[in-house]
């Protein structure tokens, strides 16, 4: 229950930061995606199910205020959380390189999904422009932000929440 409350507060806090403060730090009108970092780190630290729920609720929050299709971002963020949840059992979460790689991969996929489902279907064919102008800069900026905030998420996870990862669950431990 306690960890659920903390997760809920973290989703709200990240949404607020994403919508207000992070726009101040945007470079070339590109804003890093803090919500995605949250989904990926929770997926990595707490497993597929947590990643799925965090992704679903953060996406839902975006849908409520800014989405044109209700449920669209919820769906994509949910998959982001779920996919990164697969890494939970394979990698240790105390190193920042794993979440960085995961964020790079999932942010790229996330933006491709937004492009494919909302722009390509309306006949915007210039993938190259979008790739160089939006997707790649966002991936780099988000990875950079991951280096800064992942440690904070890591500490919040281990200080304020029940430990979700059990050593015995790891596939590397001989049972």
């Amino acid at each position, binding site marked *: 229950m306690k960890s659920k409350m903390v997760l809920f507060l973290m989703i709200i806090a990240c949404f607020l930061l994403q*919508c*207000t403060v992070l726009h101040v730090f945007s470079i070339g009108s590109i804003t890093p995606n803090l919500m995605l970092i949250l989904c990926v780190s929770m997926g990595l630290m707490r497993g597929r199910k947590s990643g799925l729920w965090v992704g679903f609720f953060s996406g839902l929050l975006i849908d409520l205020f800014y989405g044109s299709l*209700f*449920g669209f971002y919820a769906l994509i963020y949910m*998959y982001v959380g779920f996919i990164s949840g697969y890494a939970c059992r394979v990698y240790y979460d105390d190193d920042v390189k794993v979440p960085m790689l995961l964020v790079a991969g999932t942010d790229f996929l996330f933006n491709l999904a937004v492009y494919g489902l909302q*722009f390509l279907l*309306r006949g915007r064919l*210039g993938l190259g422009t979008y790739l160089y102008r939006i997707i790649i800069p966002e991936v780099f900026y988000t990875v950079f932000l991951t280096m800064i905030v992942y440690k904070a998420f890591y500490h919040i996870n281990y200080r304020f929440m029940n430990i979700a990862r059990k050593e015995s669950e790891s596939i590397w431990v001989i049972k």
Partner: protein
Amino acid sequence: MKNLKKKFHFRINLKSKHLLAIMTIFCVSCIAATFTSGISTAPLQETAGMIVVPFEKSINRIGSWLLSIRASFREKQELLAENEELKAEIDSLTTQNNKLIQDQTELTRLKQLYNLDEEYSDYPKVAAKIISKDPGNWYDTFMVNKGSNDGIREGNNVIAGKGLVGIVTEVGPSWCTVRSIIDDSTNVSAMTVSTSDNCVVEGDLELIDEGKLSFQQLYDQENKITVGERIVTSNISENYMEGLFIGYVSEIHQDSNNLTKTGTIVTPVDFRHLREVFIITVNKQDAIADQKGAADQSGENQEGGADEE
């Protein structure tokens, strides 16, 4: 019993794939529902708004306080502002120059323009501050700190400084979201001032960096439209009030069908540094209804109705 609970818990833990499938179906059905029948999520939005909006407002207040402190310390900022002003002046001088070169038709155009400006100031307006922006980089929507309590409704037009900014898409008690005209999914029915030819103005993400919009389907057989022409919202638009200024034509090309023209428009609004906007609290639909009522009774009724707001 405890054993059973444990078993049950264990089972759910295992089936995260199934959970994913269920949630996927849920999301897809939500998307389908909103896409086809336009089911409103207003009650959910209102509850979420009650939690989120006060925080956003206070963050915004702190932000503007910090900005004001920073502004007082920085000379560079002043210089930048001055530079911007000078640039704007150059722009306006260039357009003025363009205008002066033109001939007799200019007079009628300006007369028309004057009429439009008169109308423009007649609309009842509410000033609002932008408190948050769309989290992604793909779209251009933002939230402002006025809502239905201040008389704002869905479909209200939003302007800033000189030009059209966007349209209100969702409204809560003390907030509303605005989709700007540079958003990739926005289409505005527009017309040229001098010849009243209609065209469609579209936001285009590929042009956003240059602060431009694209326009299409301009029918201009006599090649009267030139660079520098003013584009305003058209009289046949369903969502936008007539005569709101959109921008100047910056490029114009003939289409391959030889009938219509496409090109780009420069907006006078600086969308990247937008902080305050005005929301026009009458909708186009009301204006049409008003005019009908006025035609039924007398001509002056319409103005009285507008003043009341």
